Structures are given as structure tokens and as C-alpha cells.
């Protein structure tokens, strides 16, 4: 069923892109006419199983970029670098080269844009201080264009000291586990939190389709 379902999205998208290509195979004075290029790129990227992209800069080169987070999609190891492009209160908007955005509220994920099944907004518990049971709210846009809330019951536990390596440097931290479940889904988020509260590395869940994202904070 999984493989068939994978083919569904892919086949439909292919067919649609081909049909759209005919519709947009046009040139003209408007910048919107470059849709053909986007559509063609889309078709090419759907053909075959493309190897996942990797971030292949040396650790020092990444560090030199400044305030950067390394983002890896757990499901297929697709990786990218994201950088801050905006700050509103405690929430920073990070963006990758192709425009995919993550909204992080002091390193905790509260929104995504560009994954398809995006978290439009979220109210996570305070993983730095809360222990035991807590509630987590995710808001998703459904197929009928209505944003609905998914509420999870989570158990947050401190599983002890754990030293991790990010971009060639070691960081002593404590590993916090947030195990969440609801009728719809269950997942586990992990946070490696340093003594000063910085979440150096984390594994945070977005949705059933997207899966979990690994975030590694490179800068201090």
C-alpha cells in the first residue's frame, strides 16, 4: 500500500505537470510565463528516484556562514542549510536556498512553509522547563482549506546527559524526550539542550507525510 500510495502522488503530479506544461508552454511579456521552466524542472525532478541532496560543506565552512542551522529530513536524508531571514519577537524565520521556510521559536519548531503538509502554526510545550505531561497543538490546513487543530498529549522526560557533535565541535547537553500521541498520530521529539538553554540539536516532527526534521544549530 505504501508503494502504491507513493506512486499516486507522483503519478498524479507527473500527469498534471505534463498537462500544465502544455497549458503554460507559452512565452510572453509577463514574468509569470516562466512557469514552463518551473514545470519542466518539476517534471525532471519527479522522474526516477533522485538521490537526496546533501549539505557538503566542511564543518569550518558551515561555521563561517554565521547564524545557520543544518536541516535534515529524517525520512530520506535530504539536507539543507537554513538561515534567518526575519525575526518577530522570539520567533525566527529561517529559509533555505529554494524558499522552504521554518519558523523556530527559540529553536522549537512552530511553523513550516513549503513542505506541502506544513504546520501552519503551533503551540508547543516549554521543553526547557516542563516535565511530565503537557499538551501540544499543531494547526494544519486541510483539503477543504480549513485550518484545524491537532492536539497531542505529550510526556516530557529528561533522559540524562548526552554529549553531541555538531559541525565538528562537541557540546555537552541533556537529552530531553517528548513522546506525543493522539488519535491521529504518535511521534517522539528529541532535544539536546545545553546548560544555558540553547537547543543545540533536535528531532522535531512535522506530519505523517513529511516526517521528522533534524535541526543542528551551528552557531553559538
Amino acid at each position: 500500500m505504501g508503494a502504491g500510495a507513493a506512486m499516486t502522488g507522483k503519478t498524479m503530479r507527473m500527469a498534471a505537470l505534463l498537462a500544465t506544461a502544455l497549458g503554460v508552454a507559452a512565452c510572453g511579456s509577463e514574468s509569470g510565463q516562466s512557469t514552463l521552466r518551473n514545470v519542466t524542472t518539476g517534471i525532471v525532478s519527479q522522474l526516477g528516484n533522485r538521490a537526496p541532496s546533501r549539505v557538503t560543506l566542511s564543518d569550518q565552512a558551515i561555521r563561517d556562514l554565521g547564524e545557520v542551522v543544518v536541516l535534515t529530513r529524517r525520512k530520506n536524508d535530504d539536507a539543507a542549510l537554513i538561515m534567518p531571514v526575519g525575526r518577530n519577537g522570539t520567533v525566527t524565520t529561517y529559509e533555505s536556498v529554494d524558499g522552504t521556510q521554518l519558523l523556530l521559536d527559540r529553536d522549537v519548531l512552530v511553523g513550516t512553509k513549503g513542505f506541502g503538509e506544513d504546520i501552519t502554526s503551533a503551540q508547543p510545550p516549554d521543553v526547557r522547563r516542563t516535565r511530565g505531561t503537557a499538551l501540544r497543538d499543531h494547526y494544519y490546513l486541510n483539503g477543504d482549506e480549513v485550518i484545524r487543530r491537532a492536539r497531542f498529549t505529550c510526556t516530557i522526560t529528561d533522559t540524562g546527559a548526552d554529549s553531541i557533535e555538531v559541525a565538528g565541535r562537541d557540546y555537552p547537553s541533556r537529552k530531553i524526550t517528548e513522546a506525543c500521541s493522539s488519535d491521529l498520530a504518535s511521534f517522539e521529539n528529541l532535544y539536546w539542550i545545553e546548560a544555558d538553554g540553547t537547543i543545540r540539536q533536535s528531532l522535531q516532527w512535522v506530519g505523517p507525510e513529511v516526517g521528522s526534521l533534524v535541526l543542528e544549530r551551528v552557531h553559538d
Partner: protein
Amino acid sequence: MFYPRSGRARIETPAGAWFCVPASTAGAPRCRRGSLRGISVIRTLSVSAIALSAVLGGTTASFPQELGRPTLNFYGVSGVIDMPSAAVQPDGQLASTLSYFGGISRGSLSFQIFPRVSGTFRYQGFQDLNYAGYEDYYDRSFDISMLILKESRYLPAVAVGLQDFVGTGVSSGEYIAASKTVTPRLRATVGLGWGRLGSDGDLGSPFGDRDPIEVDQGGTLNAEQYFRGPAAPFAGIEYQATDRMTLLAEYSSDAYELEAGERGSVSDAIIDRASPLNFGVDYRLNKNASLGAYYMYGSEIGLKVNFVANPYEPPMTGSYAPGPLPVQPRPARGSDPAAYATDWTQTPGVAATLTQRLAADFDEQGLDLESLAVDAGTATVRVRNPRFDAEAQAIGRAARAMSRVLPASVETFRITPSVDGMPVSTVTLRRSDLETYETAPDGADKLAAVAGIGEAVPQPAGSVRNAEVVPRFKWNLGPYIRNSYFDPDSPIRADLGARLSASYEAAPGLVFAGSISKRLIGNLDENKRIDTSVLPPVRSNFPLYDREGDPSLDSLTATYYFRPATNFYGRVTGGYLERMFGGVSGEILWKPVDSQLALGAELNYAKQRDYDVQFGFQDYDVVTGHLSAYYDIGGGYHAQVDVGRYLAGDYGATFGFDREFENGWSVGAFATVTDVSAEDFGEGSFDKGIRLRIPTSWFTGEPTRRAASTVIRPVTRDGGARLSVPGRLYGRARTYHESELEGQWGRVLR
């Protein structure tokens, strides 16, 4: 530290735009561009698979599930193999079915109009039937069915249906069916059929005799026939053997008298009905497609393929497009009061500078800034949206750009969407609300609560117009496809060609536009049907236009859109309005921003164009006009009534009913009744059709205002024909009104 937004942050290495380095994991060095898009999606179902009903209604989120649906039969309705059942398809589902056995091909389009009511349009071909003067007989039919009783623990689902209830009646039948899910994998159906469905093994005529249909022109409701005549039982079983495979068996009450040659010399025999039993297997390929193979009536092999789509279940949810510019919050008033000073308004040329900077940001967001008016506390923009099909998304992106450019003292944003220079509403937002809710939980809904949607505000004094948007010349060269259906000589014809279109907007609302097309390949010109209409041939001679109109001047118009008064919209158009007619058209529409009702009046003078679709005209001219009422019933259902005079000089009314979905899908039907009698109208008796609109963004997951629209008319005749004027007001005015903005408000912060 922030990265500049223009051109997006690029991570350049000495080697160029690619990341190249020895990989830390085993393997050769790789050079790849970091990207998270175009990722193959592996859908995993959640731990407990949930019914599709979780998507509709309720406040909890749900994730896309497999498209569940009962089997569709050879007629394209919920059923077993040839017989119907009482199972209903999911609400809003659009299903197409292609089936074939024994020389009988059927193409059907079914739509679940309401949760309990489904409608179907079908085109059938009977090869070598030799009936009614045609060797291959083609027939169009409409079905409707309704669920009377929902299935419960002890009771079955019960449905009533009319098959081919408007038309020449070759497939006419009525039925009552009851279906019960005996076990989770087994559904059993029994029913009673009349007409074609009561022709084999009848138990008598409980409601009296059935008069033979007068085949005539078709198109009339044969109401006195329904449920009359012999009634015969049918039954069927559907067994879901595996996740993808369903086994089917049924006992059919359709004797296929016509097709088995049992009506004497009326028709030839094309099938051999050796047995009333049918068997088959239906295999689900994926969420949207399935195939079936069958053994029909003891003698024929049957095949069926289904393509199904549900507007509520897009192939990919959400959007894959790049994210918006982040909101730029202002410093806290307490910490930096100087930033909120208002003396910037005294700077000479500040309005022009701000307009320029805002235009650049709008451009990057995919919007066009038409004008900006700004004072110490309020900014009013007129914005055009060429990209986002979710209009609320355009509003949100405009607000974001404004937060990045305008000085801190400007607290109120008034965003006026403009459609071709005609302002249609104003959305008022407080900048503080935007800053608060951009990243807050449930931010979009919270912003909806404080956003004001009202009538378009007049342009304030001191407005600076963006000269790059108006005046502007645009052109476009691209392919086009045109098709024509249901001619018995060739049921599907198409042309493929190139079309060059251009437009020049001289001032806001004043547009000159034209379009020329040239066919490259196609067979639309092979239509040799001669017009036999007693009415002036206003539409029925379209084959002549298809044949001689190449290259063709599709349209050449001058249009002026304006706002005569509050809540009123106006349009005047002149020139070559469509392929068959030119002339002058004027229209007025009354539609307040928050109103469910809209009223309009249109008056046209039309002159028929020459068949070569160039600059010449024929002698025929006519004054046409309509009074229209548009009503948004709620729940996505819309009704429209137009009363007036049509192109052939006939008077009458058109009734339209559409179901629109928030994401831009629309499925509807229309019918026109005029003082032209059924005999004068000709085949079909009255003008009717189905219209369908599917937004392209539903397929691709990227915003675009393009959509695939089509109108399917079983017959094109001259009665009830309306002038096809481009730019009618209702569609334009309503796009940024309350109902439409609220419909996709979920994307305002996207």
C-alpha cells in the same frame, strides 16, 4: 544578522553555487544543491486509520487518507456491475467511468452533488446497432439518484434513482435499491427496477402501464413514465477480497432487448444475452484510478476503468511554493519612540520613494502595486494579484511587504484588490495585529477576527500610481486546444494550434485587447453537419466557423471597467466580442461586499461575424439583454437566474446551479427555457449543459490563477443562446468579497 532578501540568500562556495566537499559518511564526494523540494512522498497512514469523514466537519485536523469509495458500475453510478446500488460516493466526489462490452461503450461523469444526491451525465455508443436510422447509435443521458435511508446497524441503505430521465430514453429506467454491509468486506444489494431495469423477469406492473416514449427530439422529462410498467428484481454482491481487489457478482434485470435484437427489425443484435448473471473483478490501482474485468451476460467480456477525484483530497496538500517575506516588526514604542515620529511625511518626494520600494517588494511576492497613498497613520494600496488563486494569500503578502517598507508610524493598512483597474473591496488590517499573529498559534484565524473586509475605499488624495503597472502592454504566445463532442460522425474532435494575445491597459480600467489564433493540426473542420434550424443560425453553424475561420481573429475589444457608485460595478465593451459575434455590450452589477445576493443587468447589440472570423460581418444582428440574480446559498452552493432575450431573438430564462469548493473547484449545471418550442429548438428540446472548473494549483501544489474550465453541452442549437462576452462582472467583483476571502483565509499567512 539577516540575509538580504533580494534574490534570496545564496550560499556561495569558492567553487560556485554547488556544495562540494568530501562527504563525512562513506562514499565519493558529492556536488549537490541543497534543496528540500521535489522530494518523493511516501505516505504513511497513521497508527489508527481513520474514516474520510474526519476531514469534513469537526475541529480536529486529519491527514489525507486513501480515497474510499464504493464500486462504480458500468453506467458510472454507485453499483455492482450493470446494476445500481444504494451506496453513496463521498461528498463532492467527481468520478469518470469508461466501460465497454459487446460493442456498447459508455463514458460517464458522476458528481456527488450533496451528501445524499448524485447526478450523472453519460455518453453511450452502440456499435452497429442500426437503430433509428443510425448504424452506430450514440446517445446522451442524465441520471439522478438520492439516498433515502442511511445504512444503520440493522437497516440497509435505501436509494431511489432515475436513469436516463431526460432524453431519448434508450436507457431509461428507475430503481429502488437497498444495500447492506453484511460484513466489513461484503456488501449485498437487492433492488427493484422499472423501464430498462425491469425488462427481464418482471413481477408485474405495480403502478400501471408504461407508455412508449416518443423518441422525437429527446430532452423532455418523461415524468409520466417514472416507475410505471413492469418491475423486476435485481441483486448484487461486492466482496473486498484484498486491499485493492473487489470481487463482484450480480443478477441483472436488464433484458437488453434492443441490443439483443429482440425488438424485431428496429435494431440489429449486437450482444448475445445468454444469462442474467454477471461476474467481475475490480482492481484499485491507486487512490484515483481503478480497472475492472468482467464476464457479462454469459457471453461477453467487459472492461471498465475509473478515474476519480475529490476536491477535498488534492494529490498534494498545502503548498510547495517558496515562503513569503517575513513581517518586519517595529521596535517597541517604549524602547525607541523616535522611530514612531511622523515628520517623515514632510520629506519631499517621500510618497514616490515609498511607492517605488513597495512596488519592488510586491513584485518579489508575485503581486503588482497599482498605487499607494500614505499619511502619518494610514497606508492605502491598490494591488493586483496575477499569481495567487487563494485571494487571501495575496492580501497577506501585500501586508507583509507593507510592514517591511512603511515607516513605523503607519499603523493602519488598507489593502484594495484591483481587478483590471476596478477596485473591488478593501481589507483593513492593523499593523500591530499582523505583527502579533504572523507567528502566533492559530494566527490565521485570529487575524480573520480582527480584519475588516468592506467596500473599496475611494482613492485618497496624494495617491502615487506605479507607472510600471499602468499603463502597460502585455502579450502572450502559446498553444491552445479546442474540442467538440457528441457528433455521431466523430464523437470527439479537437484542434491544436497557436494563439497570440495582447492587451494594453491605457488607464486603470481601460483595456484594449485582442487575440489571434492559427490552427496547426486538428479535425474540427471535418464536421460536415448541415444546419437544419428554423431559428436564425446563431450557434448551430459553428462547423462553418471551425472550417473557414483559420487563422482567426478570436477577439478584439476595448473595455472600460468602472465603479459608478458604492456597491455598483459597471462595464462597457465594444468590438469583436467572440468568434461568432461582434458588437457592443454594457453591464451593471450591484453586489455589496458582504451580500449573498447580487443583481445585474446587461444589454448588448450583437452582429454576426463572417465565417472566416476576420473583420467582416454578416447581415444578422440582434439586441440581447438579461436581468440576472445571483445567490450564494451557503455551503458552497450558488444559484443564478438570468431572464431576457437571447441571440436568436427568443425570450426566456436560464437557471444555473453550481457547487463551488473553497479551493476553486466548481461543478455545476444550467438549463435555458425560452419561448422557442421543443420542435423549433430541434434535437435536445432545450439548451442545457454541465460546467466544470478545476484550478491548476490543485494538481501542482504551487499557486497560480490558471484553471481548466469546460462546458459540456449535449447539443449545440440556436435556442437559448447567450452572447459570450469576455469580462462579465460577477466573476470579477466577487473574487475579493467576504465570502471568497474567508473561503481560503487559511492561506493568508502563507
